[in-house]
């Protein structure tokens, strides 16, 4: 997902004074280098070249790392060359990065992984490079609007947050849990609601306080929010920001339990980490690349959940009690069986409006959930 932030802070890029002379000097330097090294030549293309683009650093313990792990799995495949770029903002920069991978590296399958890369950037390039397949993470493709060499994929990770909530419900003593969230958009709201409902399936008196930081990656605010939640009595914290590292370390440092998100953060807090909702892009990407290698078409619109191997849970940590483990495993098995609904009536939002009538249930695949604009009863916080 995401927005880009780091680059704004990377206060950028100093550089140089130049003039024509300087360019000439650089030209000479470059010429020499090109002649002597010519590493480009070594890159003669045989087989498939796949490009991955990340909006943040690929070792962020979060969203970008989850994709980079997927890329690493593809790299291990026979007959595939992988090229990667990190910290690429959602501006014309990403268009140029994609074109550079196509023109200079011969990439024919691209995974630009940030949500904001889709419109207008992928949609601008796709008609220009019809031989290239653009696979975008976020699930926005629709047949009547978008080119056929574009595909989108996404996973139902809200179920993972529901399972996080079950672990949290068993670990919490104060019956208050906390959520550090980036922006009040549907995907994030579904995660918050799922986390609380998972916890309430253990103990209906549990409440979840949410703090929105307003940005996808803003370490200082994430730390402040985590501290504020712990100060308010929350003893299990989870989050939906690009890189959960700060939240996990801050919460564990304050003695709270944590549930992970995006990737496995257990190494950051081995004692306090309960479990985590992780993307399993390694499976998704290797499947898509194998299909391409075999000459099969990748469907333009792909979605999957726990059962499809799109998402997975981090192994349960030592702090989850026995009863919690049993319920966690039981519900997980039920979700994998299919037909499980987290959002089901009777359910009100935290303003008292009915969002699901008695007997009404929304499957994870239900498109209604993708327009979610509310926080359910029991969540302390506001979407605006």
């Amino acid at each position, binding site marked *: 997902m995401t927005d880009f932030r780091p680059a704004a802070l990377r206060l950028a*890029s100093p550089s*140089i004074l*130049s003039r024509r002379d300087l360019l000439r000097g650089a030209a000479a330097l*470059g010429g020499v*280098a090109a002649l002597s090294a010519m*590493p480009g030549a070594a890159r003669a293309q045989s087989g498939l070249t796949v490009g991955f683009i990340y909006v943040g650093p690929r070792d962020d313990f979060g969203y970008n790392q989850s994709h980079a792990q997927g890329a690493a799995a593809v790299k291990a495949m026979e007959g595939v060359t992988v090229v990667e770029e990190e910290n690429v*903002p959602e501006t014309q920069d990403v268009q140029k990065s994609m074109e550079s991978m196509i023109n*200079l590296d011969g990439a024919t399958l691209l995974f630009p992984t940030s949500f904001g890369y889709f419109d*207008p950037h992928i949609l601008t390039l796709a008609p220009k490079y019809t031989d290239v397949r653009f696979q975008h993470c976020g699930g926005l493709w629709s047949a009547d609007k978008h080119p056929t060499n574009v595909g989108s994929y996404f996973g139902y990770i809200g179920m993972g947050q529901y399972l996080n909530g079950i672990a949290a419900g068993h670990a919490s003593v104060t019956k208050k849990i906390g959520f550090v969230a980036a922006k009040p958009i*549907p995907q994030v709201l579904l995660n918050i609601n799922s986390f609380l409902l998972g916890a309430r399936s253990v103990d209906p008196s549990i409440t979840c306080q949410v703090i929105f930081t307003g940005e996808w990656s803003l370490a200082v605010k994430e730390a402040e929010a985590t501290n504020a939640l712990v100060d308010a009595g929350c003893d299990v914290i989870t989050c939906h920001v690009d890189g959960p590292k700060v939240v996990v370390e801050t919460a564990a440092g304050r003695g709270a339990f944590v549930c992970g998100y995006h990737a496995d953060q257990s190494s950051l807090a081995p004692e306090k980490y309960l479990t985590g909702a992780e993307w399993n892009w390694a499976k998704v990407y290797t499947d898509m690349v194998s299909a391409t290698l075999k000459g099969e078409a990748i469907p333009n619109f792909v979605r999957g959940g726990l059962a499809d191997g799109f998402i997975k849970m981090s192994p349960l940590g030592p702090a989850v009690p026995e009863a919690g483990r049993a319920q966690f495993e039981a519900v997980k098995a039920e979700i994998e069986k299919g037909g499980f609904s987290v959002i089901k009536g009777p359910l009100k939002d935290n303003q008292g409006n009915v969002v699901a009538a008695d007997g009404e249930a929304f499957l994870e695949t239900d498109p209604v959930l993708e327009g979610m604009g509310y926080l359910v009863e029991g969540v302390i916080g506001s979407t605006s």
Partner: protein
Amino acid sequence: MAVLDAVGTGGGAVAALRRAEPVIVPVLALLAGLVVFGLFLLTQGRSPVEFFGYVWQGAFGSVFSWMNTLSRAAPLLLAALCVALPARLGLVVIGGEGAIVLGGLAAGAVALPLAGVPAVVGLPVMAGAAMIVGAVWIGLAGALRHYRGVNETISSLLLAYIAIAVMNHLVEGPLRDPASLNKPSTAPVAEGLRVGMIPGMDVHWGLVWGLIACAVAWVLVERTRWGFAARIAGGNVRAAEVQGLPVGRLILGFTALGGACAGLAGFFEVAAVQGSANASLVAGYGYTGILIAFLARHNGLAIIPVAVLLAGFDASSGLIQRRMEMPDATMQVLQGIVFIAILMSDAVYGRLPFFKARG
């Protein structure tokens, strides 16, 4: 150096050398910076030759690379002017990012009721709105400076944070297109109101307007009485006031003009690149502009090559990552070293013996 010394023995040659000093010193500093970075690479066991080969290839080595570099340079030209213009008055304005963001927001907002209006009318209105908003925003920092004595560096930076917050609020609230679910944005700018590419190039028209703005800024500062007055006031405000120069109006005018340039950059981001206003406007161009302006010594024409070089570094960053599997930070280390080398070279101006007239 010995060579230069030898050359510098003739009278005409000495004069030429002195004129060339502002070019030669930074270029030597640049080369020194590159050498230092090369040594750094060697300590990491990487080949500097390979590295600089890729920088060349990625930034300037082909038509595609040039297009890549120039499209990155386009917003930087205007962003740098937002710093360079007030700087001639001795004002250090670092909040251009705010004017870019609000300029883009204004262009995106104004575009909504303009859908269906011909581009000849619609685009100037959008650009005008963006420039006015940018001018007001940075002009505000100028006004705070002039009327209240508030430090413009701090106020412009803080105004940038406010601008981003305002943009986020409006884009996620009143101006949000309900269809933009997971990436809150204004409604898309109508197809007829998009800025296209320069014919034959893969770069939008913002580049041309950026170049024009740089040239106009140079003429304004170096060749008009207003520019002259601004430079006097930049040298010594008290002396300028004693001379009867309208210092207050100069401050307001130059900050507003700088802000208008940044606002225009925001307009092009929306009309030529993004197609709607959203958080992607916060791309750091305003901050990169600060460095460009300082390296160009706030000279409008010098901004052009500096911006192109900086954009070239950025353009080659991807190739470095992909081919040498080095992290994104590599290019920032290079840029940091070069930046420091050039700033340090300021200290040697007028001190190198071979630039001095002898005899």
